[in-house]
């Protein structure tokens, strides 16, 4: 669907976005550049996912089996359980922010370079 002008902003562009051939996809998938993008993404997202799930499960298990520890008062009526719970909120916000920053710095430029090259060939 090579066109002379820029594609229309909405509407029928959705029906048939330009598609490279399967052979082109395979070639790109096997390229070092794409391998680098995949590694960058996976080595960030996979360990982080395991880490936050483990951190969350730790919280669930402590709530279940360490009631005495969780009930320890820290200041006023605020106990360990509250701080731990709010800590889950905090880490969620931080991880979300951290990933967004990582993705726009490390992933987006690599992905965009591959995409524009592939789409330029069409």
């Amino acid at each position: 669907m090579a066109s002379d002008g820029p594609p229309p902003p909405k509407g029928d562009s959705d029906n048939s976005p330009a598609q490279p051939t399967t052979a082109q996809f395979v070639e790109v998938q096997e390229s070092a550049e794409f391998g680098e993008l995949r590694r960058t993404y996976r080595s960030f997202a996979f360990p982080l996912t395991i880490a936050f799930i483990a951190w969350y499960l730790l919280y669930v298990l402590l709530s279940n089996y360490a009631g005495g520890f969780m009930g320890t008062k820290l200041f006023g009526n605020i106990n360990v359980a509250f701080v731990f719970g709010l800590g889950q909120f905090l880490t969620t916000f931080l991880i979300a922010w951290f990933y967004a920053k990582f993705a726009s710095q490390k992933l987006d430029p690599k992905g965009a370079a591959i995409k524009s090259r592939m789409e330029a060939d069409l």
Partner: protein
Amino acid sequence: MSPTIQLSEAAGIHLANSDASEHRPLIITLFALFVIATLVITVWAGRQTKSAADFYAGGRQFTAFQNGLAVSGDYMSAASFLGIAGAIALFGYDGFLYSIGFLVAWLVALLLVAEPLRNSGRYTMGDVLAYRMRQRPVRTAAGASTIVVSIFYLLAQMAGAGVLVSLLLGITSDAGKILIVALVGILMIVYVTIGGMKGTTWVQMVKAVLLITGTLLITFLVLLKFNFNVSDLLGSAASNSGKGSAFLEPGLKYGLTETSKLDFISLGIALVLGTAGLPHILIRFYTVPTAKAARKSVNWAIGIIGGFYLMTIALGFGAAALLTPKEITDSNPAGNTAAPLLAMEIGGGGDSTGGAILLAVISAVAFATILAVVAGLTLASSSSFAHDIYANVIRRGKATEKEEVRAARYATVAIGVVSIALGALARDLNVAGLVALAFAVAASANLPTLLYSLFWKRFTTAGALWSIYGGLASSVLLVLFSPVVSSKPSSMFPGVDFAFFPLENPGLISIPLGFLLGWLGSLLSKEEPDVKKYAELEVKSLTGTGAH
């Protein structure tokens, strides 16, 4: 003590009748205003809905912030708003545990699912699951699991709507409740058939803004009452609850027995892994133009939903501090009316104008919440029916865009009618387990299949079918034979006992099983994985090349 928050403990719910009837005109006026506003939006959006991409994906032109609001609107169901506040009001800290699972779950969607899905799919979850598989069997499975998840979720909301609205309007007759369920059903059919994804998205945004504003207002008033001293608020809640410092510690709800502790672990896993497999959430990522916008919309959603759950802490403990436990349970045994009651109390009590206004506002917000969520769920299931099952399985990909959208509209009406009928029948059942079931099916059937599809080269059609049907069947069967359905006074059918499985949430068994089956199915099947299609999927999902 159900794994999800109960909205519909129908028996024995009543707000003192005199209160209800005094406030009724104001509540009805606010409801009507919301309905009229959303209908205007729907008609306006409907006039702009021409192509299939408009109907299914809102034209893909929403901004990240708009979609973030809409995602929040879709996610913050009445269960989160009324249920979590009520659970905190009655069980203290254990109510707060829910919100943490519901929030952390978004990281799975953010890190692993939202962007690849946006890049490689078109309208439904099935697009991604079937991408490199044999289309018809996998589309059928994806459609089945989408519709099961959405209908269970929908049914719980519908029955909850009937109970809630009846309660707030003081309607107690069966006919009145059925009428409310029917009204909700008809409105959701109208939103979806006319407005499609565009209309539904706007309804979600309006609802999210109303919900956040209403919650902010009550939170502010509660904190003001305690001079913004959270420790004092917690202290009053603990002493007023009659449970002392145990009220501020984990265990009042889940720490009773070893079984209930296991149940809590099971629930925790289902919550954290279920969100990223909920079809009505997944299709929201198609409404923005790029994967980057999908990522940003999840970040907005995490901020909005996180902020909202933080406020529910103030609502729940505020209700515990300012109302007596008896006031809360007399109105609704599961505590679902704690938030509206708190609004009335904080506004000056039932006899004051301030109390009446705040009660009406919060009730209208709760109603808006339910309406918007059911519309989102209906859209997800009718989209999947039309796009996965009708267009790709029945018509083998030969249906025109017009025929597909027409099928989606018919499917909406059919799903709406079925939900009205089931919602009316289930109006007196405790259907809270259905939401838990929806999360468990999403985590057991959808999430493993999605993750394998996106990240595992050797995944095959057989693996996809095993994980979808295995996850679906195991979670449905385990719930069927759990205390959610029979054996306990709080069960759906309390009079009989066929509860062989002790846990209310099946996730602990069914989620690992879903993952295991997907892996085994791929290894044991003789079929070779389609590595070329995987190359396409992988390159698309990470770079956005050729994305719709």
